[in-house]
């Protein structure tokens, strides 16, 4: 796999993605995600019906550049499809941070990088410009999301690192399905169904105390 892609997807890359839980914090505070089994179910649910039906395809489509989806069209779609302000603004902030850091590290390779705003299209466009394949790009993006969520879970739940990683491993089949779906997706496929996470994400600013940003 492309070394630069691994660097881009690493949790230490200064995108700030670690600062957001995208609603998981509310679900843990409310007691709906308390155990490793519930964490695995949450991850599989998001890959099958939520995040995996929207952000992963947006990343895959951005990789193709103008061939299948213009980046500004993808950004406009994500502006609207991300109804809840917190996740919408988190996606924009992480996208801007990722873009800034990548341009700083690889100015020549990214000299013709198209304008992007949200995290998913930015990741896809940057990875393509760095020479990563589309399948590797989406795999790295999905892996980054998955591991980011289990890292958040260890802060939010009484859950050891190994148990959290086991939950991620058990979500492997759902992640593979998500990747395959993303690689086949068209712009009109972006959507999903996660009403309870939408409600949870909207409630996060009202939590009495928070570990993650809204």
């Amino acid at each position, binding site marked *: 796999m492309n070394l630069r892609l691994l660097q881009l997807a690493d949790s230490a890359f200064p995108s700030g993605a670690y600062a957001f839980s995208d*609603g*998981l914090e509310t*679900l843990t505070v*409310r007691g*709906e*995600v308390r155990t490793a089994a*519930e964490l695995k*179910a*949450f991850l*599989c*649910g*998001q*890959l*099958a*019906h*939520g995040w995996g*039906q929207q952000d992963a395809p947006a990343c895959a489509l951005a990789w193709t550049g103008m061939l299948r989806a213009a980046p500004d069209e993808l950004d*406009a*779609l994500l*502006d*609207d*499809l*991300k*109804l*809840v*302000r917190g996740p*919408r603004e988190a996606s924009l902030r992480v996208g801007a941070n990722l873009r800034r850091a990548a341009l700083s590290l690889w100015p020549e390779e990214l000299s013709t990088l198209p304008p992007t705003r949200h995290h998913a299209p930015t990741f896809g466009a940057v990875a393509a410009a760095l020479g990563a394949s589309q399948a590797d790009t989406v795999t790295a993006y999905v892996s980054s999301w998955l591991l980011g969520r289990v890292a958040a879970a260890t802060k939010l739940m009484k859950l050891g690192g190994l148990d959290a990683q086991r939950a991620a491993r058990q979500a492997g089949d*759902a992640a593979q399905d998500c990747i395959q779906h993303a690689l086949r997706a068209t712009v009109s*496929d*972006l*959507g*999903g*169904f*996660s*009403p*309870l*996470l*939408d*409600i*949870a994400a*909207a*409630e996060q600013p009202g939590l009495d105390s928070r570990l993650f940003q809204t």
Partner: protein
Amino acid sequence: MIPAAAASLGQQTRTGALHLTFERRAAQTVLVGEFQKAPLMIVRPFALPCGTLSVFVVNPTGGLLGGDHNDIQISVGPGARVLVLTQSATRVQPSASGTAATQTVQLAVAAGGRLEYYPERVLPFAGSRLVQSLRASLEPGAELGLTETLASGRVLSGERLKFAEYRSRTEVWCGPQRLYLDQWRLSPSPQTRAPGIWGELDYAASGVFVGPGTIQDWPAELGRLASGLTASGAVWLRAAAARGPLLDADLGAARQALRQQLFGASPLQIRR
């Protein structure tokens, strides 16, 4: 083996059409144009105490079968106030071929007009597919209220998450600007019961409201209903519940709160 005649009958599909045009005349909202093609029809419009003209859409058949298509177009002129409801849930039944039932809804609201469209819930039967799209085109100064409700199936019969596919795209435009886009796509799987998706609940709703007022008191019910602003300034709504009446109560209260704050409207008093 299915006899040829019966198989042919089973493959017959219907296209229902309902085109309605409302205008304001002599300080009242009136239905000035209509085209009804079975199985879609309306019962006689009647004015609510607040002056809004209410229309019930009726489908006297057993519902939408795979391959059926509904075409609904509603136009509301300047100053007119219209509420469109359905008399009963939309029952979506499968077809032998697995074809999806489809429905397109096109709404147009002129400046100063108001359209509210609150259909009863969609009940997708086992094996059914529904693909629907709703597009609302608003002139600046138009007011709009929309809600959409989905059940996991014939819950009271114990049939849950047995449908094949539900796709619903809703978009609201004001001139060239998209104010709202939502696209529910659900093919049930074991993951549908995950926390954050539908959990153990069986009813879900979404909605969008556009109006000149500002929201001070956002409708919210902990873990059941939330609302907020889209990136382009429309008001979105999400709700979920274990039972239909609970969802209806939450949704009804949220609608009234949003109508009052966005439209300056008094509560709807609907006679069924």
